[in-house]
């Protein structure tokens, strides 16, 4: 019996009293077996705490050096004069946008005249390509035979030619003449195409005629839109001289930057070089400020003149609208250019880059540019905007769905329905996210795109959409992923509503629906909010779906398109880590920047959790 009481007690002089009252225990450093076991479990239970601390530590260890590294990079950017060039280069980038708008205006205008001729020509060429595609095997054989050295036997060639001819004729006979061509043209086309062979260098006669007709019409169109054409060309050519000068300066700055990199890499070896004299390296840039300002002014003048010579009306209403948009954008752009010219003399290469500025550049930077030959930037905003937009959209989709499902399942569904609905919704949790991402790529993307091209849905903002992979697509899938979390938490919250509330409501003669929507749901409100928040936490941290489906374009979405913004591709915090970390070397600024993103994600997840807990606590208080 005593041995069973305590396995390892070995009483030296067993007396009845000692056995019953105090069993002697073998101890080591004052710790007996029971304490040791207890200590073992306690230490294991602190694993969660330790892991959480370790996560923070390791993220910080790899990421914290980001600030000095990035500061150094920004300093080099400044000292070498790259920033100087960017002062002019960045506002000048808008010229490209204006040009592309003008080009679209021009092509739309020309199109009003040339449309028919071009579509006729294109239709005919398409026919030729169709025939060529159908007979490609025979053509390939014949071409090979012709190219053979020594040349193939004549009989064989003839036979091959015959085969090709037969195949071509078969293909031609299947052709349907496009309606834009006249019957006689169609007949000629068929006749010419039937003789198509790889040896004839020139395209069939009909096609050449159609091309010539198109060129003629095109010239006419250019003549009739002469003012527009000339203005567009003048506008496009306006910054040429500025670009030439800027490119010289950029080349110089890039050379200085290469020197800096070289200097720092040689610093690790033995032969340390002399530090770079930035002052003398920068003079070639600063000495040309007057010239640069002059060219900026010249550019502004020229652009203004060109814009003034634009005709008030373009070929189509849309084109006219775009033209006026462009006109509205131009003054702002020119002001910016002139302001840049004004900033040039004040610019100094030796201004200190403070850590505050580095932190600002990371958290509020609007560009994430890596592997650039010019300068890498690690701005956080494009990724954050992508992540937040997708997450919010996903929660907006998932919340009504999952809460309604929870209400229905909890309050209205029969037991058999519940037994069917609950396992299915719980099963969504088991579907791996990469599978959902795959569904987004292979199915949902095409479905959304097809739907957006349905003609009676064109009133929706952003329709028709261009990109298969976009934020909306990702948000739909993430919503599906968030549904089980929200559903079960919301259902718990509904379950926790005290029975007395329901009975009281029933006793007052309320219908089922009234009880549900005026008593049960309001009392479960904070639990439901916590469910929504935890769903948000799950969605914002999700990686594979956004990596596969969100489109991975690193740019701040264009909010000018209103709600249609959700149909643009974007990149996310989680996606960027998954995509880029595998390709960067340890310790580089890029690597550290990705760990910084990780730190931010970690902090966001803690915050979301904290908020959700606060809600739950309120919910528990209100219950008691």
């Amino acid at each position: 019996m005593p041995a069973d009481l305590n396995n390892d007690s070995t009483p030296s002089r067993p007396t009845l009293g000692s056995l019953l009252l105090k069993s002697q225990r073998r101890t080591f450093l004052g710790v007996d077996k029971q304490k040791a076991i207890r200590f073992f479990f306690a230490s294991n239970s602190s694993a969660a705490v330790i892991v959480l601390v370790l996560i923070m530590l390791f993220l910080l260890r790899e990421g914290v050096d980001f600030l000095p590294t990035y500061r150094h990079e920004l300093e080099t950017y400044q000292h070498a004069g790259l920033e100087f060039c960017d002062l002019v280069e960045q506002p000048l980038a808008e010229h490209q946008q204006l040009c592309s708008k003008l080009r679209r205006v021009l092509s739309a205008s020309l199109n009003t005249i040339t449309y028919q001729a071009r579509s006729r020509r294109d239709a005919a060429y398409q026919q030729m390509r169709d025939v060529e595609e159908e007979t490609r095997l025979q053509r390939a054989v014949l071409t090979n035979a012709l190219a053979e050295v020594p040349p193939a036997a004549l009989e064989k060639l003839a036979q091959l030619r015959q085969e090709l001819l037969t195949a071509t004729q078969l293909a031609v006979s299947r052709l349907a003449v496009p309606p834009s061509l006249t019957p006689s043209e169609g007949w000629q086309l068929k006749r010419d195409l039937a003789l198509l062979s790889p040896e004839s260098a020139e395209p069939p006669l009909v096609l050449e005629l159609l091309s010539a007709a198109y060129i003629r019409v095109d010239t006419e169109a250019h003549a009739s839109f002469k003012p527009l054409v000339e203005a567009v060309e003048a506008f496009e050519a306006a910054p040429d001289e500025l670009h030439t000068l800027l490119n010289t300066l950029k080349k110089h700055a890039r050379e200085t930057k290469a020197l800096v990199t070289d200097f720092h890499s040689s610093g690790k070896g033995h032969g340390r070089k002399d530090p770079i004299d930035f002052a003398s390296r920068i003079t070639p840039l600063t000495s040309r400020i007057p010239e640069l300002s002059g060219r900026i002014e010249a550019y502004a003048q020229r652009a203004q003149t060109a814009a003034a010579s634009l005709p008030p009306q373009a070929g189509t209403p849309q084109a006219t609208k775009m033209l006026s948009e462009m006109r509205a954008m131009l003054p702002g752009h020119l002001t910016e250019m002139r302001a840049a010219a004004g900033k040039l003399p004040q610019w100094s290469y030796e201004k200190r880059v403070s850590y505050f500025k580095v932190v600002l550049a990371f958290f509020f930077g609007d560009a994430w540019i890596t592997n650039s030959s010019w300068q890498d930037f690690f701005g956080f905003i494009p990724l954050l905007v992508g992540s937040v937009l997708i997450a919010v959209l996903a929660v907006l989709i998932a919340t009504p769905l999952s809460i309604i499902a929870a209400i229905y399942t909890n309050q209205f569904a029969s037991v058999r329905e519940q037994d069917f609905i609950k396992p299915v919704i719980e099963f969504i949790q088991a579907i791996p996210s990469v599978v959902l991402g795959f569904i987004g790529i292979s199915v949902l993307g095409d479905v959304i795109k097809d739907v957006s091209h349905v003609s009676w849905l064109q009133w929706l903002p952003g329709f028709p959409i261009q990109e298969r992979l976009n934020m909306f697509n990702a948000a739909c899938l993430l919503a599906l992923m968030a549904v089980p979390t929200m559903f079960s938490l919301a259902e718990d919250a509904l379950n926790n509503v005290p029975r007395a509330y329901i009975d009281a409501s029933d006793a007052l003669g309320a219908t089922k629906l009234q009880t549900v929507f005026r008593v049960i749901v309001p009392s479960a409100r904070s639990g439901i909010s916590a469910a929504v928040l935890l769903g948000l936490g799950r969605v914002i941290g999700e990686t594979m779906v956004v990596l596969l489906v969100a489109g991975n374009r690193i740019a701040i979405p264009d909010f000018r398109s209103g709600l249609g913004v959700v149909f643009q591709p974007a990149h996310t915090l989680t996606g960027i880590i998954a995509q880029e970390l595998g390709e960067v070397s340890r310790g580089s600024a890029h690597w550290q920047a990705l760990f910084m993103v990780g730190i931010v994600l970690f902090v966001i997840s803690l915050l979301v959790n904290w908020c959700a807990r606060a809600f739950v606590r309120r919910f528990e208080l209100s219950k008691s």
Partner: protein
Amino acid sequence: MTPNPTAVGNPFAGAKNQQERRERITRWLLRLVTFFIVAVTLGILALIAIKGSPVVFRSQWPFVNTKFLTELPSTLHVIEDVKGNKQEVEVGHADEVKAGLGDNFHSETTISYSGGGILGPIVGTALLVLVSISVALFLGVSCAIYLSEYAKHGKFLELVRLAILNLAGVPSVVFGLFGLGAFVLTAPVFTHMPMDRSILIIPLGFTTLSFEGWDTCVLSGGFTLAFVILPVIITASEQCLQAVPQGFRETSMALGATRWQTIRYSVLPFAMPGILTSSILGIARAAGETAPIMFTAALAFKDKLPWQKALPPLPADASIFAHWEQSVSRLLGVFTESVQALPYHIYTIAAKIPQNEYSERAQYGSVFVFLVLVATLAATSIWLRRRLRAKYRW
């Protein structure tokens, strides 16, 4: 629940009818939304089953595409002859087939990762799951035992609970970063030649303990995954322990058993089946995660199984002991190899190669197999839990 108003001659009967109609409509709307979710889920599963099963199953005996399940992924060569017939050829035989076609050869397309089968990824995922579930069960169950059997209310308990809750919310890609920093680049190894990146080197005489990391391998990935699923395991285990009636413990204690004896003989045996079934759900989760293993264990392509590593050949007269030692090192070496994993394989073939009919086949096949594995695990867990609930009802 509401008494029929017309029966008592309620003057508002007409209004009530309208209300009833509105109520019925609302109810139907709610039902519609609920079943919309269900339909979407079932639709996705059906789609994968319809497109994936032709890849995995065959209409003739043995009814299963054994090649797909027993071969490693490889590059698929599609060779077209002048007649337009297409032939799918494995990577080694492409030149043979081309030579055989001679003049009739027309064109060749290669599609990465889409040939062969998916044995490599399946084995890799199995190994990762094995490591992660061992680590997570050990830590998780002991943590749950402490929380449920030993801990008293206090600061420490609060802290642990808070940590578990927060750990559950950490994004999986952050776990990946953690695994990369901690296990791949820092974890301790015994080695004779410490690397430059080692942060701490402890000489032990016969060898040195160097904190230089395990590199990308099954161990790193498995440990990372273990911490991803740790909160799930802890919560589930704690629930199972709590479900054991308090009377069991009291009876045991009253008979004079120590705390540990109580746990060992009166609590754990009854909680263990529940813990194991719940941990199956953890396995499903671990198998499905991609982001944590991206930088810690997974490779896009590997032409060998983990145990097929080339070891130096033994001399012909090697003792049986040498053979034995080599087998053991081969077996243990499995865990220090990087592997392919199913989710990462799906990511690779879905995102990194151009899409065509051949890659689509590989995609749906892999996704189908993956989903069947995960769903089987999840369904087993749910089914076992139901049976257990019915069995242990106290």
